[in-house]
């Protein structure tokens, strides 16, 4: 499953960079995040309640940040497992300055689900993932600027 898109963040790249490296921000932004703790340099242990509608599940796993080129780009890798199956995603973020002190945050995500999810959830997984991405950026924005919601433009390949 691949998804890429662009989110407009209402803050300059430097601030966005800091926000995205801040466990507190991530904890508040990751949809359904129950718990997020540092697990060494640029690594976090998380547990989340993810999914939508009837299709919910508890997942636990690790997030690692790599290939950091402050403040231009970094790669976030998350792998988790839970009752409904396994989830792994690798997202490359690209930060570029936009008009009026904004940041255009481009992302290319590549991920897969395993176990039960893959076997039966295929029909809605992509849509669920995209919605979670949208929620994530909306939340990051909220953190950056209370109430300011970035416009999410989605493109899927």
């Amino acid at each position, binding site marked *: 499953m691949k998804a890429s898109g662009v989110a407009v963040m209402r803050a300059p790249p430097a601030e966005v960079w800091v926000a995205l490296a801040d466990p507190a921000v991530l904890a508040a932004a990751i949809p359904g995040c129950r718990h997020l703790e540092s697990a060494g340099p640029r690594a976090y242990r998380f547990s989340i309640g993810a999914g939508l509608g009837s299709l919910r599940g508890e997942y636990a796993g690790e997030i690692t940040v790599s290939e950091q080129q402050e403040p231009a780009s970094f790669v976030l890798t998350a792998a988790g*497992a839970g009752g409904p199956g396994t989830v792994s995603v690798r997202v490359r973020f690209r930060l570029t300055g936009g008009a009026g002190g904004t940041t255009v945050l481009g992302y290319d995500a590549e991920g*897969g689900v*395993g176990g039960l999810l*893959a*076997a039966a959830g295929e*029909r809605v997984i992509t849509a669920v993932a995209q919605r979670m991405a949208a929620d994530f950026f909306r939340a990051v924005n909220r953190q950056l600027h209370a109430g300011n919601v970035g416009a999410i433009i989605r493109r899927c390949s």
Partner: protein
Amino acid sequence: MSSLFGARVQRVEDDRLIRGRGAYLDDLGADALAAAFVRSPYAHARITGIDVSAALEVEGVAAIYTHADLPDRLGQPLPLLIPHPDLTHGRTPYPLAKEEVNHVGEAVAMVVAADRYLAEDAADLVDVSYAELPAVVGIEAAREAADLVHPDVPGNRAANSVQEHGDAAAVIAAAPRRLELDLHIERSASTPLEGRGVLARWDEHAGQLRLWTSTQTSTGVRAAVAARLGLALTDVDVITPDVGGGFGVKIVHPWPEEVLVPWAARLLGRPVKFTEDRREHFIASAHERAQLHHVTVGFDDDGRIRGLSVRFWHDNGAYVPYGLIVPIVTSTQLLGPYKPDAYRVEFDSLYTNTVLVTPYRGAGRPHGCFVMERTIDAIAAELGLDRTVVRERNFIQPGEMPYDQGLMFQDGRPLSYDSGDYPALLAKLKQLIGWDEFAARKQAAAAAGRRLGIGLACYVEGTGVGPYEGGHVLVETSGKVKVATGLTTQGQGHQTVLAQLVADELGVPLGDIEVVTGDTRRFGYAVGTFASRTAVMSGSAVTLAARKAREKALRVAANALEVSADDLVIEDGIVHVKGDPDAGMSLGTVAVLSNPLRYAFDEAAAAATQFAGGGDLTRPPVAEDDEPGIEGRAYFSPVRSTFASGMHAAIVATDPDTAEVTILRYCVVHDCGRLINPRIVEGQIHGGVAQGVAGALYERMAYDEYGQLQNASFMDFLMPYVSEVPRQIEIDHLETPSPLNPLGVKGAGEAGVIPGAAVLAAAIEDAEGIAITSMPISPSDLFELRRGAGA
């Protein structure tokens, strides 16, 4: 009494089944503990730890086992059932994964609990940690071998095999014309409506195991389980209950569950049952069909094939417990009714991190038929000849039978066709579907904006392969006849067909005959049900056994009636003098007299006791060369396989807007030698055709690049409903008897499925004018092909 051979007799099996009184695996063992399995969510990973502590807390859990708990013999990899000299790197799974998992669904731990609900609760709580490894998915990835499934198998290559007659390369080079094609068939699976299942009871006092399993070979399971559990064969009974379909997948044995469940039952001193659920069947049983073929063919201007060279790659999944049967069948059966001057075939059997691959109805034949028939259609197109003409010019002629193709077949014996009349079959098919009239119909439809296409495909099917089957026939003193054969039945109507044969031989009514299959208590020597072999093998064996019983019955009756056996006949269960129905006795009485008794337990028995008088007092009650009772046991072991044949044709309409394919007509001409029960043969063809259509238009296994099966449910694996199969399957028969068995029969079980992909690819190609080289094809696929062709 008129012969039942060839009669459209109603099935004797049905009464129980339509009343809901069938006994399938999960209908048994109400008192048994339930097993559930923890299965790998990863296609390829190292197991770094297993923690069962939380799972053990679940109320009702009796035990949880991992590989570490398995005793020596059971901890070994499962057997490689069919070793073949070319299978240089055979690998088989452990009953429970040891250190590494090689496909999603591989069993890692076994939970035994009070019921399946609780077992699944506990399975959820077994915490397995994995270190993920790169997954090898798809034939291309396996071939490139950037990653390896098994580190000690270079190139992911389990086997490389070559067969050749004549110098194909030279003949092709010398041929006036040449073509090359790449042809692909995707994965599908047997998917019977009932999954696998096994129930075990251990008798502590007798030290004996009784095992019920939904299998296509009870004797095979018995031998394998006895070996793994260190038991004597005589201490293991394997009983096949009603089986809800097999189609190949249930010939594999022993499945991990088939050895683990009886082991646990013995350990726990409680009956244990495993009932596979639908998701497990998709990710933990077996698939088939995926192959990639490259064809080089040399032919002349008349369309006569000179040389044929086929190189193909077979995806055998993570393990090869069933050996190379599928690719070997493809490589040999590919030739069908044709006779190229020279033929070379080479295949690689490749490992991937997917569910293992074993025979599914047709077992490699559908792929071979697809390759050969697509090749002939391509030759016809190249030369602008009618597709039936090119076929006629390449047919083996009836006068050339028996015809030796110069190859070794799947039974290790010469690929030699016993009989058949291919020109006659084609003539029947053209007539049935109206081949010659179609062009006009197509033109008329086109004028009305409709796209029609017609296609046909021919096949020859090796059936009734050895080594042997046996039969036992016993006449009880009640006059009832008990028949047993060792192979198993999954709904094909074996009881009916075998009863028809015995009824004819013994002259008893069908209703007095009871046939038992797949019960090692009743018949211990058998091979199994596969390769359309029951009518040929058990049919012949049971017939020979019935003849022995008849001969004995006539001898005993002749003594009692003081006439010559030659003057006796058996009609309606009465042995009597020809033309004098009153001068006779019932078979039951003959059975009584055949067994000299000391003790009388009823009226009839009294007639056979020592003081009943009669008999020659100077000779022993049972002659030296004789035995008590009216029974016969016989085995049938043919020198080689019989070769059935058939041809299918279909007319399809393709929607110009939605690219949906509708089958307007589907015609079958079929030659399986003499027909024992046409109704049952036609039923087998119906089911086969439906599976052929499914494999051509609907069913595939959708693996993603991580080795996750994305359609492991009946929601997304598109097994056809009535709305997806042809409204009417039109059938015509030809009967060219086989000289290789006393009945002149050939197998019929798989025939219907074989040409499905080839026929529909040809028909769609004819409608669209776009080459169809990969099956199955969905409307979306066809739409994309149109875009590619700029149509």
